[in-house]
């Protein structure tokens, strides 16, 4: 399997990215702070308004390194990409499938089935590991209820019904999310899932992790030649990476939610690493962001056995594998799309 390369996160607002031969160089006030050969990189993500030289952008495009710019709070602003490449036949097939309600519904069911099973697995794991401390009765109810949605989902004929099932499942899952938090319970409490702006620390943390995941999934989709904006579950809207959001569904619980819970439970992040604005909006502080980025990058190096391929890969390659499986399904190599399940 392909090797997972590093992602370079640039968080210093006065950093300037340049290139020197085959190296990516980070300069601060004309002083070289960091240097890495481009072939070691998967992508570069700049937080804040760091500068980058056109020559570096050229190098990144040529080598397929995704170069993205985010605001210092993690909002996606833009990305440097080469010309439209990849297989036009694949994209045409993707568009035709997206226009076909039957095919779209089938794929949407796959993403959501895996999402529900994976969020259920997260609740299940917690009940098993912390029998004494958790409210087992409430968890049991949620776990059983989530399992029951599988049937309803399989019978769901169109996107609206699937989105309805998904919405209810998310409601049940997030209403039990606080049970996953075993320490710092006072400071980290999820009232309900919200994001614009996040109004509690968990929401701020989840939103940030979802941004990182969206970046990885979008790059993966582009690297296999699919169009990240044309999805099967998420409706198209200009600027929205609908297909990335589709594939993200199945990855959210294991990639983002579980990491958020771990960071809080292990006290790797604390309440004072967040700024609460006068209007209730919550923003992550610089140090917390760095801590989360480090943990995210470390998590991606973990080895797992991919449930469909039955092959050992690093967790960070899962978005690429899922995008590739979808592309190969659309081009007729496999008869259906096997989503990622975490067991």
């Amino acid at each position: 399997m392909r090797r997972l390369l590093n992602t370079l996160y640039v968080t210093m607002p006065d950093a300037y990215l340049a290139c020197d031969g085959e190296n990516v160089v980070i300069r601060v006030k004309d002083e070289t702070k960091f240097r890495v050969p481009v072939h070691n990189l998967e992508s570069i993500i700049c937080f804040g308004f760091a500068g980058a030289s056109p020559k570096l952008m050229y190098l990144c495009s040529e080598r397929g390194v995704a170069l993205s710019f985010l605001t210092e709070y993690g909002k996606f602003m833009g990305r440097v990409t080469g010309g439209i490449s990849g297989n036009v036949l694949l994209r045409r097939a993707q568009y035709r499938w997206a226009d076909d309600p039957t095919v779209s519904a089938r794929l949407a069911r796959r993403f959501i089935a895996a999402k529900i099973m994976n969020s259920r697995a997260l609740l299940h794991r917690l009940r098993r590991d912390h029998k004494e401390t958790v409210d087992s009765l409430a968890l049991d109810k949620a776990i059983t209820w989530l399992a029951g949605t599988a049937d309803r989902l399989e019978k769901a004929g169109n996107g609206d019904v699937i989105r309805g099932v998904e919405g209810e499942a998310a409601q049940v899952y997030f209403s039990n999310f606080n049970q996953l938090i075993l320490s710092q319970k006072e400071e980290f409490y999820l009232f309900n899932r919200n994001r614009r702006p996040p109004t509690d620390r968990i929401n701020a943390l989840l939103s940030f992790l979802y941004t990182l995941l969206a970046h990885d999934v979008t790059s993966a989709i582009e690297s296999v030649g699919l169009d990240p904006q044309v999805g099967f579950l998420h409706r198209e809207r200009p600027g929205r990476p609908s297909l990335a959001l589709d594939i993200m569904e199945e990855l959210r619980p294991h990639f983002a939610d579980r990491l958020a819970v771990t960071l809080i439970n292990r006290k790797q992040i604390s309440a004072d690493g967040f700024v609460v604005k006068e209007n209730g909006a919550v923003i992550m502080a610089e140090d917390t962001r760095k801590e989360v980025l480090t943990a995210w990058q470390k998590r991606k190096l973990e080895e797992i056995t991919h449930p469909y391929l039955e092959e050992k890969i690093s967790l960070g390659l899962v978005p690429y594998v899922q995008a590739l499986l979808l592309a190969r399904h659309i081009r007729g190599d496999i008869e259906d799309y096997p989503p990622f399940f975490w067991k």
Partner: protein
Amino acid sequence: MTEHYLDEDLLLLSGIQHMAFCERQWALIHVEQVWAENVRTVEGKHFHERADDPFFDESRKTVRIVRSMPLVSHRLGLRGVADVVEFHHSKPEISGETCQLKDREGWWRPLPVEYKRGKPKKDGRDAVQLCAQAVALEEMLGLTITSGCLFYGETKRREAVEFTPALRQHTMELSRKMHVLVREGITPKAKKGKRCAQCSLVDDCQPYWMLRHRPVAAYLARMCSLEADEQ
């Protein structure tokens, strides 16, 4: 019957070596537009950059060396660039095998030379590429080329390649198949073989999906069943 492809249908000549190596590899690169650089391809690129340096004396009286010569063959439907075409001075004129050069006196016989990083390969894919170049040159210069040379970086040796009817036939068949795959938008199914080990596209190809195919329906049923995590 002789084919005649239009300009808009021309494919990359260098792709014929991928086609000779593996049809699926060719389709992944030229139909799917997947391109994975590995050590081998990067080294090959650097090697070619060096090959573009003049290491022959261009002013020799009996040889004229032309580098990076654009080529096209409408019969094969291929276009590309020859690394090097040597024009060897010929006295006297050999009818049908020599041509005249601008600002040069006498008759000259073209000899295509292709530079390869590694060593000679058993499957003859380099010979096919060279032959396609020769066919293009023949078409453009209106003559017949009987042989060319492959220069291997590892052995630092030239190997002469004879353009036999069999090699020409094979070259023609491969290019015809390339055009069929592009026209129909087909990516052939994988066939796993020893060559997969030296293929830079193995991660995008995933040949074993086809060989140890696991039905997705059974996978979904297994993953959505609750027994596995209830213990």
